[in-house]
């Protein structure tokens, strides 16, 4: 590699200028000649039988070109095959792109219209006449499992779609030798990342192929869906700019790709469908509501020796993501702790609510919440300090690489140091002192007169400190750990490609195997290529966004699973390294020098270490520029070495060198659920208004180990965004359903996401501990702070309310919930 000057720098974003100046190209910016616009009719009921659907009146509306009813959709397409997200599904259930005989959640698609304009399509939707037979809706886990509850799927017999268990170590023995068993029940609610851009698809059908341009995070899912559902042999998936993914755009979008494609086939015209905000809120996919019953076997000194967790997941109205929120808990099942004996029992309950989908960490925020709430509870019950209890259980630096009992290998980590730094940065002792002073004042205020009428605003200060791992780099075989005997292991391991090419003018273009959703992949990849090839990032650009026909995609080509840092970085680095070899081979021939004597700097190949010798330019010694080499490579074979393979481009597929052991689950259910493990300590300081229950976050400190940082500004951006989301989740954003299964939070206004005014300044310190197994020592950063932040806020609020003896068990900590906690 050339000198490292760009890796590690806060290089200016390559993508941001176009995104913030309206020059991005999103699906909705695209138009095609003769293009039609689609709109979807959605169920107003949470649970109902579809008796009949009549579209005659809609078809007669001028400008309407096609209407597809459930009967049409059933006749023209095949159901999806249950994928790994439904690993727990053991009964064959046919799921089509729309509801066929029954609707199972309000907002489920029923019919789709293509018309000359979107406005006409929306008018047509109102003319479709559907007869429903409403059924009792199960709007909660409790309703769904109650005796006599109406099953969503008769085939399953009940609304418990899956039950199972993973167990590591000897849990019973651990519990038998415990000094104490600490029990708690915890709950996390439904929310979503609400990306700025909802789903969007543009389908174009030609005799040669179906081309679908959509904002999918996982184009392979769309590719599979179109192949399976439409029986198409030739499918091309293109992904232009994407306005945020966060997991939302991995799974359910396939339904809409199929529906849009069906219209394109039927009308023989390009069809575009853009989801609106309310559609996305009701049907675009939610995170999973999770209930936990936890028992921890502990020693008197705070050591946790065993854990039993019963997890009930409310998966909503589809079997297609039946077990992902369970299986994703395998990724951070042991968090940062040394416990060796653990049982996780799962139950997936179907309810008449929006299906659940991956969402920034999937089950991981829930798993971290369990660990970190339990650490506080154990400390309280044993009369120990909560941070000391955590320290007692941390995996020590000397133990790395560390294999968790369920098969994850943590490459590196310094968890104690993360805590030390977080405590120092947040001035933990100072906060405790202020808290003690303030509690005295508040106690006097609350017990008697409020004093001056205009001085009455008692607030309580609280602090919470938590720690969590952030797994990165997916191994999708993980989802099959609940069925280790299965022969089907879709998505096992991790392979990703990249192409890097030197153009005739000496500039560099590259292509990645996966799409970007706004995480600065172009910027980051260019920094790596710049250092490997020895050329300025200004001369490097992304050739094209994802195109399945052009992009070098592999097993893990997905903007999900915290993949980029591991797979794309490895692929780009590998491709650039090989291209450098090729470039030097050509340069050595041109300069008539031994390759080993050549150095590259800023797009020039020199003989010897010219910079060290003081040479400033090619003129001061024998040298050749990338552009001169490009000229030869593209237009003059006579100057190439004998046997030189033409072209200055390399495609390289990277696979994780340590994908094994345990790429596939063993008979004990042990599997490498993910491959890298970042970690972070979070310290939150909150003030609670005792009268209104309002929580204000006054400090938020993160000390983060994301391994070697390629662009600290990009990593900061990921941390800011994920922390802001996690804090908002903890404080009040979320979906609320009525008892009839109607979503009451259909707009962003009602959904209640925090704005910048509620979001604290997030203070970040990086403490990078390089990963010994990755290309540059890098670790993941995409899900990051969304995993521990709900737990940090819960911890801080509980601490603030400790004068009331309050236990925080549920999220969100909306003002009313906090007020109710205070007032019993």
């Amino acid at each position, binding site marked *: 590699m050339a000198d490292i000057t760009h890796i590690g720098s806060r290089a200016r974003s390559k993508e941001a200028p176009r995104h913030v100046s309206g020059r991005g190209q999103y699906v909705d910016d695209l138009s095609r000649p003769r293009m039609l616009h689609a709109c979807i009719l959605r169920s107003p009921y949470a649970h109902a039988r579809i008796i009949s659907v009549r579209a005659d009146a809609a078809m007669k509306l001028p400008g309407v070109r096609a209407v597809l009813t459930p009967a049409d959709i059933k006749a023209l397409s095949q159901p999806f095959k249950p994928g790994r997200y439904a690993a727990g599904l053991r009964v064959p259930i046919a799921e089509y792109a729309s509801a066929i005989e029954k609707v199972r959640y309000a907002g489920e698609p029923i019919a789709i219209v293509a018309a000359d304009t979107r406005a006409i399509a*929306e*008018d047509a939707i109102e003319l479709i006449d559907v007869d429903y037979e409403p059924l009792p809706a199960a709007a909660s886990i409790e309703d769904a499992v109650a005796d006599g509850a109406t099953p969503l799927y008769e085939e399953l017999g009940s609304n418990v779609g899956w039950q199972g268990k993973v167990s590591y170590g000897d849990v019973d023995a651990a519990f038998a030798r415990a000094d104490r068993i600490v029990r708690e029940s915890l709950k996390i609610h439904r929310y979503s990342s609400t990306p700025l851009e909802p789903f969007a698809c543009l389908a174009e059908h030609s005799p040669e192929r179906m081309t679908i341009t959509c904002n999918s995070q996982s184009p392979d899912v769309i590719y599979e869906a179109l192949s399976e559902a439409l029986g198409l042999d030739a499918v091309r998936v293109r992904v232009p700019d994407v306005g945020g993914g966060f997991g939302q755009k991995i799974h359910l979008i396939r339904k809409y790709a199929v529906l849009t494609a069906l219209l394109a086939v039927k009308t023989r015209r390009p069809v575009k469908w853009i989801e609106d905000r309310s559609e996305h809120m009701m049907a675009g996919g939610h995170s999973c509501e999770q209930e936990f019953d936890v028992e921890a076997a502990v020693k008197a000194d705070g050591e946790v020796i065993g854990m039993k967790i019963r997890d009930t997941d409310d998966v909503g109205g589809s079997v297609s993501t039946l077990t992902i929120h369970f299986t994703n808990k395998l990724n951070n099942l042991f968090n940062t702790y040394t416990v060796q004996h653990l049982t996780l029992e799962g139950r997936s309950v179907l309810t008449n609510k929006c299906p659940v989908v991956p969402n920034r960490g999937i089950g991981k925020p829930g798993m971290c919440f369990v660990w970190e709430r339990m650490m506080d509870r154990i400390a309280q019950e044993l009369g120990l300090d909560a941070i000391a209890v955590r320290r007692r259980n941390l995996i020590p630096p000397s133990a790395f690489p560390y294999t968790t009992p369920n098969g994850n290998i943590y490459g590196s980590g310094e968890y104690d140091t993360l805590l030390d730094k977080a405590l120092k940065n947040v001035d933990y002792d100072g906060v405790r002192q202020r808290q003690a002073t303030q509690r005295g004042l508040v106690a006097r205020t609350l017990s008697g007169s409020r004093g001056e009428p205009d001085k009455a605003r008692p607030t309580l200060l609280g602090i919470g400190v938590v720690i969590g791992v952030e797994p990165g780099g997916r191994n999708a075989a993980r989802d099959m750990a609940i069925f280790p005997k299965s022969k089907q292991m879709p998505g096992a391991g991790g392979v990703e490609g990249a192409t890097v090419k030197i153009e005739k003018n000496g500039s560099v273009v590259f292509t990645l195997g996966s799409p970007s959703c706004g995480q600065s992949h172009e910027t980051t990849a260019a920094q790596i290529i710049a250092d490997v090839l020895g050329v300025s990032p200004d001369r490097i650009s992304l050739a094209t966004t994802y195109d399945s026909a052009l992009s070098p995609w592999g097993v893990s080509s997905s903007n999900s699973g915290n993949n980029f840092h591991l797979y794309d970085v490895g692929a780009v680095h590998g491709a650039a390294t090989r291209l450098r070899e090729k470039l030097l081979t050509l340069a050595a021939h041109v300069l008539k020098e031994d390759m080993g004597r050549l150095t590259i700097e800023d797009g020039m190949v020199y003989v010897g270490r010219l910079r060290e010798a003081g040479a400033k330019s090619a003129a001061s010694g024998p040298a050749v520029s990338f552009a001169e080499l490009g000229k030869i490579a593209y237009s003059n074979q006579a100057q190439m070495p004998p046997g030189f393979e033409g072209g200055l481009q390399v495609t390289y597929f990277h696979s994780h060198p340590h994908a094994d052991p345990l790429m596939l689950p063993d008979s004990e259910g042990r599997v490498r659920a993910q491959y890298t493990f970042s970690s972070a300590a979070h310290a939150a300081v909150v003030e609670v208004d005792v009268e209104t229950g309002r929580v204000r976050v006054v400090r938020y400190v993160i000390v983060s180990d994301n391994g070697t940082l390629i662009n600290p500004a990009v990593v900061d951006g990921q941390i800011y965004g994920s922390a802001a989301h996690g804090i908002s989740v903890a404080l*009040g954003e979320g979906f609320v359903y009525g008892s009839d299964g109607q979503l009451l939070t259909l707009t962003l206004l009602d959904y209640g996401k925090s*704005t910048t005014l509620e979001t604290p300044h997030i203070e970040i310190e990086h403490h990078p501990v390089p990963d010994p197994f990755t290309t540059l020592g890098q670790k993941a950063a995409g899900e990051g702070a969304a995993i521990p932040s709900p737990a940090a806020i819960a911890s801080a609020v509980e601490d603030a309310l400790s004068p009331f003896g309050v236990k925080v068990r549920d999220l969100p900590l909306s*003002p009313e919930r906090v*007020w109710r906690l205070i007032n019993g």
Partner: protein
Amino acid sequence: MYPSEFEYFAPQTVAEAIALLARYGDDAKVLAGGQSLVPMMKLRIASPRYLIDINRIEGLSDLRRDGDRLVIGALCRHADVGASALVREVLPIMTDAAGLTADIQVRNRGTVAGSIAHADPAGDWPAVLAALDTDVTIAATSGVRTVPLSAFIVDGYTTQLEPGEIVTGLSVGIPPAHAGGAYVKFEKRAGDFAVASVAVQIALDGTTLRSVAISLGAVGPAAIRATAAEQVLQGREASESLLMDGERLVREAAQPFADTRGSVEYKRHLAGVLFRRAFAGALDRANGREISTIHM
């Protein structure tokens, strides 16, 4: 996402607007700021067949003093009120409301009179202006009439406005010296509708509360005057025990309904807390202390 088809008119004068309203009656809607109407049309909650855009009518953007009254034209935006030095001087309670309404984009477009005509139970202006001496000016082909705000809004989203009529403006009595008011709003997050809100406007005679107006927002089908609390306070000196009585009476006056913003019990409780904080602000201002808007 797209409204149903409608016909659009942009009259140049109030007379033209009235003529259109007279012609189309209930099928017509007036577009001023459009910050409630347009989202409702996009969601197809409202599907007017005729839209009468009054933004081109001159002379409706007034925000001026006329003797002892503040005159607010139908096209006066929330942001105009928020930026007005006159309003800050004579009715700082309105400055509070202008800054707490929705977000900057809405405040730049939405109008005060439009909020009154829309009569959202959780709207800020209905709550604030109910605590003041507010008149609504209404024009129709038959002439111009003036109605007190207390009579104008009859229920949630329901006013006295007849088909063919248009609100051309508001006027608000400017309080005498030694008066002060404050508007306090509890919202789940910045820019949201109120979970509950309270406006308090008082006038002092020395340390005696010469007059007290308390208006509660978002805790009933329309703004509620807490008259029992007002009566208890009037003619007395503010004391902790008196304010505790007032707080209790405010809670009793609230008639909240449960929704995603809160339960009946919580909203009722909040009304009491907000009353105390708004009263404290009103008292400060009545005593000549300049205070900025109280944030919850």
